[in-house]
């Protein structure tokens, strides 16, 4: 489907070369990136409902990891600093 768009845009581009220059290469690059994304993640061979399922699961996993990172990392970092820095200063001074 995306390849059709790219190929037809290649054909159209030969006819209106003047208008092609500023936005067409940008859309072609976007289409190419989308095609490569589909191929690398093998979404290209999946049926539409499978694509939604895989993307949903991937999105959920990424959200979960990001949430844990944002909520818990500052607390853990502060905890570590609080528990080691006084001991370090004691060791270094004496």
């Amino acid at each position, binding site marked *: 489907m995306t*390849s059709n768009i*790219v*190929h037809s845009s290649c054909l159209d581009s030969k006819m209106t070369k003047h208008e092609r220059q500023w936005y067409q290469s940008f859309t072609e690059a976007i289409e*190419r990136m989308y*095609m*490569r994304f*589909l*191929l*690398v*993640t*093998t*979404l*290209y*061979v*999946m*049926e539409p409902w*499978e694509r939604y399922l*895989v993307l949903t699961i991937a999105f959920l996993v990424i959200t979960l990891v990001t949430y844990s990172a944002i909520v818990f990392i500052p607390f853990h970092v502060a905890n570590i600093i609080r528990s080691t820095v006084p001991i370090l200063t004691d060791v270094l001074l004496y």
Partner: protein
Amino acid sequence: MTATKKSEQRSMNPTHTESSREEFEETPTWTAVVTVLGYAILSALGWLRDFLRNVGLEEKKTSHDPNPKDFVPLYQSYECFYTRNLYTRIRDVFNQPIASVAGAKVDVMERVSDDFNWTFKFSGKKIPSINLGSYNYLGFAENSGPCSNQAIKSIEKYGLTTSSTRHELGTQKYMVELETLMAKYLSVEDCIAFGMGFATNALNIPALAGKGDLIISDTLNHTSLILGARLSGAVIRKFNHNDMKDLETELRNAIIHGQPRTCRPWKKILIIVEGVYSMEGSLCKLPEIIALKKKYKAYLYVDEAHSIGAIGSHGRGVVDYWNVSPDDIDIHMGTFTKSFGSAGGYIAGKKSLIDHIRIHTHSGCYCPSMSAPIVYQIISALSIIMGLDGTNDGQKRIKQLARNVRYFRRQLVDMGFIVYGNDNSPVVPVMIFMPAKIAAVNREMLKRGCAVVTVGFPATALTESRVRFCLSAGHTKEMLDDALKAMDEVGHLVSLRYSKRNPPLRWNELNRTDYENEYFSC
């Protein structure tokens, strides 16, 4: 000139030392990781779909065995899981029906599918495209010309079939003519021809080896050789692809330790290699194998299915390419399917060997003999190649193929694709690695007018899928340029330029005068 006189005049140097490199670039790590992850995602989805099908939420579209109690289930291995869940998703790029002669150009019939490749309907449209998938190395797959005229005349004279096996009434005059001509072509004493190339291997290796023998075969040998070796009942050992040290180790171990339990010496040791390996594009290292064979007194069987007619300055196969004496190889085997545009296979060698095969081959009493038009196609193609018809059309074809191969391969390598194999082999595999790209490359190339063959598991290793171009003497320079332009665009769209040795270049960035000078000079 007899065969013995010719052997004294040969040296062991190959005729193409300048550029007979053979390269197998390593898979880039990132690509390998992504490929394996891609297969993992698809396998997980496959388990989900299988679960849905078993539970009943989805309809079972394959034939399924009823799994009765106390019976071993029919479908167990990974290959069936793969066929159901991965192969079927991209099934429209495999087994594509064609609607014309599969020459340099072919008409591919267009198919549409409503239910994701479980069923197909023909739309009626024929897509004319450049044929880069047929093993048409010398361009003899034509439906007009001297070969087809001779084949048609032979039907009028001999009919279509003898309806008999070779041991009964199947040995027609044209079979004897073909066999003597083939023996003369290969500079050996005698030759025997069979109706099917696969069967030549599968049914004749049992006649040559048996219990108490050892067969040492290359890991990447064709299925017909493996089947023949298994049917023979001999012990089979493998050596790594084209690895002469490994072969020597295997030979030494075999001779030192003998047969497995009894430690008796082997009755004979048979080394089986191929001339050109069709999935890798590599050539076997014949002089080194012959040196090993003579040192350890083993026998050598060379399967020249893809190399006869296509390799070598006179088209006589790997024997011609490496410039070795044909007497050093005990059993020459080849097929007529690839370079001669016909069907069938042959085995050639010393007269005593061929006499033994004539009596003991399984196909002698079970298979009907070859049909007249097929044999006359081979005879006329052979006469053209050998120059017996008075023109130099044969040499022109061989040179055209060599020129096409060098032109095409060099440009692909310089564009940054990973291309396996020897520089001179007409089989050009370009690596794709990822499963989804197999379908994408095939569909995009067909849209741009090139019919190519993309292969994945089980023909290759799971993570080493590739697109395999088969060049032909029938391809003109314009066709090759169109194919390279299409491959360049598809490679850019799908991102196939993996090579680390050559930087990725677009086709119009290459210095094409260099290649064209080479093309027109030789």
